[in-house]
């Protein structure tokens, strides 16, 4: 093996310029893939992160079936006590109860249909960034306060300002009419169009009172920063719940299957592009491999005459390709990691990204993901393709007869 490796290594540097160029192509491909994949995954992380952070939470405890059919009657009894139980038993701090309903919301001038959410005044800011995004006024003073906080876009649509009263008209848990008149104490502006335009929040006790919930609520929201550990937190929460057959614990991707699907689809599309790119690089490399084999036909003829088997020579050629590829990939990975590390540190901003960021409520700069997967999956794809490419010239050697090979110069 030592001697074969030495021969392969020297053969590589017979034509240093060609080898260097081929390595550059491979290394360049690796850098490109590492950068693109890192950025793509980083962007997904950001979308998931901000989605989890702004309102939805990492996990939610809900009544079975509430996710697909959010009826006001699919509720969790004694929700505040249960929430406290989960807090106590898991030791997790960022947990808050919510109750959800719908109402026609009227100002003096206009009426809109919106979602109405009852939140725990003391805990909501632990699971959602919305309370912190109240740009005018304040968040709730107490769980039973007669107050409402609304989104900026809705406030504009309703033409209300702080202190103006809103009339809520909906249907309560038992089907009776739910009605309330509440003053606007805060206006939040999240940048998320949906939230800003079509949701109002009220304190949870007030909600339970207005919608006749009898202590029920609809979701217990749990937030943790590291969404990759969702499954771990989920098992903790399930344990803390005990046997509650009618309750389910849902992770962020179950809560928002659309986001997950969108990401998966986008990632597949990305990979299609990467495969095309790698295929193009591979074809140019294949040409080089082939040339380097064809120009050594006579030499291979000599080796065959001496008793080498086509398999030995094929293995030599494969080894050359492998050394070249791994060498180039090592360089590519080093450069790629350096570039991604730089942008991980300083962030990357595109033209027009601020507007995009606003719509999707993303930070104004992207950080590439720095995971093993993000860094190595591109190079692995290149390695797979170039190995297949190297197989072809290696296989051609099987067809070589020593006499014919030696006739060539």
């Amino acid at each position, binding site marked *: 093996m030592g001697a074969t490796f030495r021969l392969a290594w020297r053969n590589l540097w017979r034509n240093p310029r060609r080898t260097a160029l081929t390595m550059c192509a491979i290394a360049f491909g690796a850098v490109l893939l590492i950068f693109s994949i890192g950025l793509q995954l980083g962007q997904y992380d950001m979308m998931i992160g901000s989605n989890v952070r702004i309102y939805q939470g990492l996990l939610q405890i809900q009544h079975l079936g509430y996710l697909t059919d959010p009826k006001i009657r699919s509720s969790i009894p004694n929700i505040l006590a249960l929430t406290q139980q989960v807090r106590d038993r898991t030791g997790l701090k960022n947990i808050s109860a919510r109750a959800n309903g719908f109402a026609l919301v009227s100002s003096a001038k206009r009426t809109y249909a919106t979602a109405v959410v009852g939140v725990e005044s003391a805990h909501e800011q632990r699971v959602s960034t919305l309370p912190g995004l109240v740009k005018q006024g304040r968040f709730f003073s107490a769980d039973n306060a007669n107050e409402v906080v609304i989104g900026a876009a809705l406030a504009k649509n309703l033409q209300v300002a702080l202190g103006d009263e809103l009339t809520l008209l909906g249907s309560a848990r038992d089907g009776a009419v739910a009605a309330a008149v509440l003053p606007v104490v805060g206006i939040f502006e999240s940048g998320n169009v949906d939230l800003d335009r079509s949701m109002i929040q009220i304190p949870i006790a007030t909600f339970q009172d207005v919608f006749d919930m009898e202590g029920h609520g609809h979701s217990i929201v749990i937030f943790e920063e590291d969404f990759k550990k969702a499954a771990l937190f989920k098992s903790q929460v399930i344990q803390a719940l005990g046997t509650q057959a009618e309750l389910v614990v849902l992770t962020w991707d179950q809560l928002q299957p659309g986001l997950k699907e969108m990401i998966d689809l986008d990632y597949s599309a990305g990979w299609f592009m990467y495969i095309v790119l790698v295929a193009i690089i591979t074809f140019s490399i294949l040409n080089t491999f082939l040339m380097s084999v064809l120009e050594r036909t006579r030499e291979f003829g*000599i080796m065959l*005459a*001496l008793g*080498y088997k086509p398999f030995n020579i094929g293995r030599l050629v494969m080894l050359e390709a492998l050394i070249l590829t791994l060498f180039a990939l090592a360089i590519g990975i080093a450069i790629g990691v350096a570039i991604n590390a730089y942008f991980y540190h300083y962030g990357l901003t595109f033209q027009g990204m601020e507007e995009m960021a606003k719509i999707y409520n993303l930070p104004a700069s992207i950080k590439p993901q720095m995971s093993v997967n993000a860094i190595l999956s591109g190079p692995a794809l290149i390695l797979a393709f170039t190995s297949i490419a190297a197989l072809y010239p290696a296989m051609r050697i099987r067809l070589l007869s*020593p006499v014919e090979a*030696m006739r060539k110069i």
Partner: protein
Amino acid sequence: MHAVVSCKNVKKVYKQGAIEVIALADADLTVDEGDFVCLSGPSGSGKTTLLNIIGGLDTPTAGEIIVADNRLHTMSKSQLAEMRLHHIGFVFQAYNLIPVLTALENVEMVMQMQGVAKHERAQRARQVLKEVGLEGLENRKPPELSGGQQQRVAVARAIVSNPKLVLADEPTANLDSKTAENLIDLMRHMNTEHGVTFVISTHDPRVMHHAKRNLSMVDGRIVA
């Protein structure tokens, strides 16, 4: 004496479209152990074809060839490769060597394929290179050696693992007459000192002069 090579009625026909070229027509040849045979004859008479077939590089159209007790005409390609590796040394007209390997490594490579231990390999290669007069040039690569020196490395490689037979197809054709003479002297020396059996094809009268046995080929037949 024991015959290293025994060819009977060996025929080789090349088909080029509709035309058949008869390269060998019922060639008979016996080479005994320790012989030093010179094969001459006009261009196209079949010298290379015969050497290739004896060396197991090519297969005959008909006839039987026994080399070192191997019935070549019955063997598969990979059996032939194995036979060449262990029993036959080759010296060709030119470009015999692997250009990226040093003289020493070129001599070692066959032994490496044979599975000879690294230490023994190097020792034997050095010794043979010394014997062919290349002491001190072990670490030069072929482009840094003269044509004559390159052919000496090729001879060293051919004999290093004590093959039953060394086949040399016009080994001196690319050398000037002095260098050619030296190379033949060297091969003859290996023949007398180590009993290596040689079959050499050539146009060169000086080469024929050194042979124990001179054979001529005409139109694919051995005539004398």
